[in-house]
């Protein structure tokens, strides 16, 4: 009893804020989709996410957990975006994924946790000159949005044979964002500054299905499917916006030609365009490839990824990145620390955004 409580407590303390890294490309859309990957997976560009029980992407992989375990991911990003005066560096710290899982029967494991579904944290400032009462009045606006949509998952993975594991999960999409819109006037004698603030609550549902198939000793295949309902935005109990959420699916392959090296690759599709034209949504395809080299106790990981982001006024922005990381088991395999670093570049015709992210993951198996 003490060990599970310790796991839950330590992970909850660490998981203060669940969100992914933000992006300017998500401001006009529903947000920036989160990467549902543990540090181990993300250090290899997400290629291992489908096979990693601590990445909230697939439920079937929970079947591989033979002991109560928990894992939390922390990420700090430095993001450079162009501005009139050159470039602005933005910083943000997030805890984008948390998974707790354990077996309840010999072949059945249950798991759950949180992951970022959409990050809606941003702040923008603009300057303008308005003609009010026949005079030109310079104004400066600041709109900040702090929050996002979190994917709360309860899932089960079951091994139905030596080679096949299947899984399913239900997802409650919930969260909120605090929005503050402020306008200040240069002529502060005649015009008072104005601030509007409110908190928007988000709600939605989803379900996911997945399977893992071992083809021989060295090859493993994964496939997953997920359908989400509508994302409802409520303000004071009144629905102010409703957007369809995408159907997503993907597949991955893992090849371990020897004891010291594992390769993986994945592809996934999201039909975000159902979210509606008002949010400039586009379907996306994302791929990744990565390798884990070294012993299970202290591997080195590397990977590359590419694809698109779903929201952009001038078509789907592209995203490409590379990442690397290290892992280390301790306490006889009861704990593991993973660290990683990721470099992403997102761009469209108008804007290029460059991101460095430092990753830290802790996994505990009491």
């Amino acid at each position, binding site marked *: 009893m003490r060990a599970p409580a310790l796991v839950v407590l330590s992970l909850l303390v660490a998981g203060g804020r669940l969100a992914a890294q*933000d992006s*300017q*490309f998500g401001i*006009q*859309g*529903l947000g920036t989709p989160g990467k549902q990957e543990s540090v181990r997976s993300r250090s290899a560009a997400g290629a291992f996410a489908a096979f990693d029980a601590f990445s909230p992407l697939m439920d079937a992989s929970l079947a591989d957990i033979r002991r109560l375990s928990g894992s939390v991911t*922390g990420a*700090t990003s430095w993001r450079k*975006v*162009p*501005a*009139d*005066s050159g470039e*602005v560096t*933005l*910083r*943000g*710290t997030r805890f984008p994924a948390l998974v707790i899982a354990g077996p309840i029967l010999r072949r059945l494991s249950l798991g759950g946790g949180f992951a970022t579904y959409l990050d809606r*944290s*941003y*702040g*923008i*400032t*603009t300057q303008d000159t*308005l003609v*009010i*009462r026949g005079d030109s009045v310079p104004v400066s*606006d600041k*709109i*900040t*949005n*702090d929050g996002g949509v979190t994917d709360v998952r309860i899932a089960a993975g079951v091994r139905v044979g030596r080679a096949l594991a299947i899984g399913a999960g239900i997802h409650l999409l919930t969260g909120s964002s605090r*929005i503050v*819109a402020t*306008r200040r*006037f240069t002529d502060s004698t*005649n*015009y*008072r500054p*104005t601030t*509007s603030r*409110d908190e*928007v609550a988000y709600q939605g549902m989803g379900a996911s299905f997945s399977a893992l198939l071992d083809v021989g000793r060295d090859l493993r295949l994964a496939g997953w499917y997920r359908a989400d309902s509508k994302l409802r*935005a*409520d*303000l004071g109990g009144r629905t*102010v916006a409703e*957007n369809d959420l995408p159907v997503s699916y993907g597949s991955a392959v893992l090849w371990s030609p020897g004891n010291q090296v594992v390769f993986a690759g994945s592809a996934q599709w999201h039909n975000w365009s159902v979210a509606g034209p*008002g949010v400039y949504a586009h379907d996306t395809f994302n791929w990744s490839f990565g390798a884990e080299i070294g012993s299970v106790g*202290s591997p080195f990981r590397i990977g590359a990824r590419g694809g698109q982001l779903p929201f952009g*006024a001038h078509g789907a922005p592209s995203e490409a990145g590379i990442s690397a990381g*290290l892992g*280390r088991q301790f306490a006889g395999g009861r704990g593991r*620390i993973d*660290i990683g670093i990721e470099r992403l570049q997102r761009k469209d015709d*108008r*804007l290029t955004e460059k991101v460095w992210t*430092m*990753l*830290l993951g802790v996994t505990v198996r009491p």
Partner: protein
Amino acid sequence: MRRLVGTLGLVAAAVTLGCEEQLIAPGDCPDFCPNGQIVLVDTVFTSVIERDSAYRGYVKAYQSAAATATDQPAAQSRPYFKLDQMFTSIRVSAADTTLVPVFADSSRLRLAIVRPDTAAPNLRLQLYALPSTVDTLSTYADLDPYFNGPIVDSVNVSDLRSRPLIGDSATVHAWGDSIRTDSAGHVLIISRVDSTWFIYFSLDTLQAPLAAPDSGRLAFGVRVVADTAVSIALGTNESVSNGPVLEWFYHYTPKDSVNAKSDSTLRAPVFDSFVFDPPNPALDSNLTIGGTPSARSLIRVTVPPALRDSIDVVRATLLLVPVAPVNGLVSDSFHIVARQVTTDLGAKSPLNNEPAGNVVIHPGVADTVRLEITDMVRAWVILDTLTTTAFMLSQVPEANSFTEARFYSSLTPAFRPALHVTFVRRFPFGRP
């Protein structure tokens, strides 16, 4: 390897947990800004002011802190005051109840010009003797004969101002400050605190007689003249420190003595006031503000639903159309202030002490008057929607002068008061 991972892990933990967030960047609009924007609306509400009224009688001439003295073609205004009684005999010691007579030697009268008119050339103050029977009900017509009588004393203030400043130690010791003086003994001291001009008249016993039948009471009227139209204001007793003061210099001979003793004593007015001609016209259907006794106008506002639904008011301006330009000279300019009515009881409504807005009214100008009342309207809309949405307009300084402003009321549809409001629409929260 273990040490490397441990060290990097600590660094990553420190960076991850210790990083301060910075998410605000200049917006590249419209492509990378939220679809929802802050929207301003600027509109004139022409029919939200109703049941507006004017009332007179708040502050009377003898209650004001200053009194206007003016000489202009369209108006005459003359301050006057009655000084407190002066004793005509004195008890020499506490042990001896015998009274001995007091003989006045001279006196010195101090007047304070709290609102000078520096543009008027050859500005003169003329002092007239008034009967001790004057009171606060005396009218311009009552006093006019005395102002056409002999002048008790006259000082050319413009000339006095041009005189050299005398600041030797003996003078400063006697007067408390550097002075300017003329050959007739008039003295000018300009206050270092508020630039008030203090004028001292030296009066002999013929100019200021100590008359036992009047109990030593003296009354004076003041007239201002210049080579052009002129308007100034004299401080009154209600201003605490700028009222007229007469210092009696007297002597008496104590009992059993042949040597006279000299002394002096100060006398302030029992009241001071002013009279003017022509009198303020009676109140009519327009909104009147100012004059003496002072008039105020009560403005009631029906906050329109469009404002109730808005999230914030950034500017609110009351528009008042004058019936006619205010009568007077440039130096007669005054303020109109708006004060929130805390409970609407009509003319006697209690008011918030803090002015909600003020505007300067210049005589001779016929433009629409714009009074900024943003904070008050904002409070009606946002802070307390149950508050009384009314305010009172009054003159500052009040009842100092004959000047008053008249504006069209809501009974004149074409020129009725209006509220010009710039407000922000409700921000489209929740919409991407």
